[in-house]
Structure formats: structure tokens, C-alpha cells
């Protein structure tokens, strides 16, 4: 019994190696097919890496939602202090800090380079602002109700959620992820078609061998085995090549990306696909290769009879 099992596994090993041998014996055709498959796999992988890097470059904003409460221009500083104090006392607020009109003007003068222009103004155009940080456990609904409550105060001109641009940005990322999914699906189908067609040609090339094998009593499963392995080899190697392509592209982008990041005062570094993503890529590649060769053998092997 164990002899049968070991000869069974020896048979599989033999099919695995001989299918690899067939690929090596026609290197140009193999490389061209691999390149097309690898490009099809590299595109979604590249897009995924782009999305992941954009997310990590901009940080994870989901929890960090603050709001700026702009007071009406006539409100006195003492009143502003009082309002700030009462905000601090609220259970759903973790911090509230008053930025007086004078502080804001001084800061603006320092940072903007418009000092001389500001000097020409007769009075400070800036309002008092209270920077409010809700407790970290606050839900989006809780934050929204806090905002409405603050807007209802007579001294408040407007309340701006710092999260608005984050929300929009996350929405853009969500769209990108959906685009990624659609592109990956279409390109995956493309990979299956490429493998299927390659295996179809391989079957036609090895027609004599298939006929003789069936003649001496080879089952359809036996005849099919090396072609399935060929498809899986293609998938594996295309996955590795796709990873090399993306790694190469990232290396090419790293210089410009670093200068872009430093222009924004960030130390962000482009990160390559993770080991888990590489593993998933190879798994997807092997599966697509298997599916493509399975379809091709199902269609074409039945037709070849001695």
C-alpha cells in the first residue's frame, strides 16, 4: 500500500519536473507568455501597493477627528474663555483649546510671510477659534450631534470638522480600491485566457504523445496531469516576475517619492508589497494557471483519441 502511495507521489513529482522541463526547452515562447501574464498580474499588484502606500503616507485618520469652532467676530475674549471652559467640562470632549484672534494673527504673520500686508489692516480680521478634540471613543454620530449643538450657540459662527477632507480622501481611496478589484478581476480572466491558450497549443504540439499514452491505457486524469502542472508553473513564475516588476517600479519611484515627501516635511518611504501580499500573489497566480489549464485540457484532451 505504501509502495503504491509513494509511486503515486513519484508519478506526480515526475509530472511536475517533466512539465518544468518542457517549459525550459522552449525558452523564448515560455518567456513571452510569462511576461504577458506577469504584466497582467503586476498591474493590480502595483495599484494595490499604490493604495496601501497612499494610506500609510496620509496616516490612519479614522479616529483622529477634531473640530474647529469659529466664534463670531464681535465675541469678547473673556466670553471665549468661558465657552472654552464649559466645553472642557463636557463628557464627550477630551480637550478644548482657545486660539485667540491675537494668537492666530501672530502665528499667521510669522508663517505666511504676509506680515507687511497684515500691518496695513486696521483691525484683526481673524475670529477667536476653539479647537475641540472629542473623546477617542466618540462615534461619527456623536461627533455630528456635538457639532450641531455647538452650531446652535449664539456666539458660534461656524463649526468645521477637520475630518471632512479625510472623509473625502477615504472615499477616493475606496473608489480606487473598487477600481483595483475590477481591474484585478478583468486581468485575472486575461491570465486564465493566456494560460488556456498556451496549454491548448501545447496539447496540439504533443498530440502524438497524448495518443500513444491513451493507447497504452493512460487515463484522462493521467494525460491531464502534466498540463495542469504546466499551468501552475506558469502561474508561479508569472507571480514572481510580477513581484519583480513592481519591486523594480517602486525602486524607480523611490527617489521622486522621497523628494515629494520631504517637500511636505514628511519622512515617508515607499514600502514594497509585504510577504503576505507576495504569498497571496503567488497563490493567485498558481490558481489562475491551474484554472486556465484545467479549462484547456477539459476542452481539448477529450477530442484526442488514438
Amino acid at each position, binding site marked *: 500500500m505504501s509502495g503504491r502511495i509513494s509511486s503515486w507521489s513519484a*508519478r506526480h513529482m515526475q509530472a511536475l519536473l517533466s512539465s518544468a522541463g518542457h517549459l525550459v526547452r522552449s525558452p523564448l515562447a515560455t518567456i513571452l507568455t510569462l511576461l504577458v501574464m506577469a504584466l497582467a498580474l503586476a498591474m493590480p499588484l502595483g495599484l494595490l501597493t499604490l493604495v496601501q502606500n497612499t494610506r500609510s503616507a496620509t496616516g490612519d485618520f479614522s479616529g483622529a477627528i477634531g473640530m474647529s469652532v469659529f466664534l463670531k467676530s464681535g465675541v469678547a475674549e473673556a466670553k471665549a474663555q468661558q465657552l472654552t471652559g464649559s466645553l472642557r467640562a463636557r463628557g464627550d470632549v477630551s480637550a478644548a483649546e482657545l486660539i485667540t484672534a491675537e494668537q492666530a494673527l501672530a502665528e499667521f504673520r510669522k508663517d505666511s510671510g504676509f506680515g507687511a500686508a497684515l500691518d496695513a489692516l486696521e483691525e484683526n480680521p481673524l475670529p477667536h477659534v476653539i479647537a475641540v478634540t472629542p473623546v477617542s471613543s466618540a462615534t461619527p454620530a456623536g461627533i455630528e450631534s456635538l457639532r450641531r449643538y455647538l452650531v446652535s450657540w449664539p456666539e458660534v459662527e461656524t463649526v468645521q470638522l477637520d475630518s471632512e477632507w479625510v472623509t473625502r480622501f477615504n472615499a477616493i481611496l475606496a473608489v480606487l480600491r473598487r477600481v483595483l478589484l475590477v481591474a484585478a478581476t478583468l486581468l485575472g480572466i486575461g491570465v486564465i485566457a493566456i494560460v488556456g491558450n498556451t496549454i491548448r497549443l501545447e496539447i496540439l504540439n504533443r498530440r502524438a504523445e497524448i495518443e500513444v499514452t491513451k493507447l*497504452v*491505457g493512460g487515463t484522462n486524469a493521467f494525460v491531464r496531469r502534466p498540463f495542469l502542472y504546466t499551468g501552475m508553473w506558469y502561474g508561479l513564475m508569472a507571480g514572481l516576475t510580477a513581484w519583480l516588476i513592481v519591486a523594480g517600479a517602486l525602486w524607480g519611484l523611490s527617489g521622486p517619492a522621497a523628494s515629494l515627501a520631504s517637500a511636505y516635511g514628511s519622512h515617508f518611504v515607499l514600502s514594497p508589497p509585504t510577504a503576505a501580499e507576495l504569498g497571496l500573489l503567488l497563490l493567485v497566480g498558481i490558481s489562475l494557471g491551474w484554472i486556465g489549464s484545467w479549462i484547456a485540457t477539459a476542452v481539448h484532451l477529450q477530442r484526442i*483519441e488514438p
Partner: protein
Amino acid sequence: MISFEQVAKRYPNGREALAGVNLRVAPGEMVFLTGRSGAGKSTVLKLIALLERPTRGQVIVNGDNTGQLPARRIPAFRRRVGVVFQDHRLLTDRPVFDNVALPLIVTDSSLKEIDRRVRAALDQVGLLGKERLLPLELSVGEQQRVGIARAIVGRPPVLIADEPTGNLDPQLATEMMNLFRRLNEVGVTIVVATHDLHLVRESGLREIQLDSGQVSDLAGPLPHIEAQR
């Protein structure tokens, strides 16, 4: 071992290759199948090897009715019928050993078993020592013998050969016949289709003559055979 009852075969192109053939080959018997080109010799062999199914009538080989055998049982059926072709149909990109081993490889035999039986089969056809050569590095007669080694390596109870001596000179043809006789002596049932009437007469074995898709004449001892019409 092999029996045809009222067997007709019409190919999809409309050609009627056999029209009501009756014949029997007893276990352990060796017979010749003769007749002009197009008389239906190849069709009879194809029906025995289940490369074709009969249009009408019954073909029984090794106890299986080939007309009704489900597709999934065809591989097992074919392992019990060795086939030798005139053009030998070897895989030219693989060495002799791999060609002969093919019928064992498809049955998941152990590597040790394959090695032993391939050498035994090559020894029987006188090609021991040529395992690593490619078929095209052999002479035509040797290639034919590789084909025979492949047909007998799985020890099938039935062996069929289509014009096995067609490409061989008289001396090689006689050697080939002696090889078949030796296989027959160890119990293999053999059907040889041939043009070479001289070889047939010389052998003294039974001859089944086909003409226009029917059994036309009988020669030699007639143990189990009925004439058609």
C-alpha cells in the same frame, strides 16, 4: 479470447469497412489476418484494441463487450491489449527506456518494478543495452522491436500487430515472426495482420482472409471459426 459476431463497421465518411464479420480467436492462439489493402484488416485490429467501436454486431475481447464498455473503463481495457503498429508510433524525443516504460508509468507501477520489467521486455526483443538511445538512433528493425517491447511490457493477454514486417527485409521479417512465436508459446493470444503470404504459409498457422469487409476464406486448422454466408 476474441470473438466477432456479425460485426459491421461504417466510418463517419460513409465507407463500410466491415460487413458482417464472424471470427473467433481462442486463448493462446496465434492467427494471421490477410487480405488486400482496404479489405478491412486494420479495422478488425482497431475494433480489437477498442480504437473503434462496431456499428453493428458484437466484439468481445478478454470478456468485455467493446460496444458497451463505458468510457471510464477503456484505459483498463487497453492495458490488456498490446498493439504493434507498422509505423511503430514511438515518441522520438524520448529514449527507448521511456518509450517502453509508458504502459507501466500510466498504471502507477513502482520505479523498481518499471526498471525490472522494461529490461525484461527489451531482453525479449534483443535490445538490452540500448535503453538510453533515442528511437531515431536505431535501425528500422530495432525501432519495430522497441514497439513490440512497449506492447508486451505490461504483459497483456492479447497482442495485435498491424503489418509488423512491412518495412523489414526477409531475414528481419523471419526474426520478427520468431519473436511473435516465442511470445505465443508463453501464452499470449496474437493476431497479426500482414500482406506477406509467404510468411503465413511458412508458419503453418491459421489464416483469416478478409475480402471487401467479409471473411472470405479459411486456411490452416479451423478450430473455432465460422464462414460468413
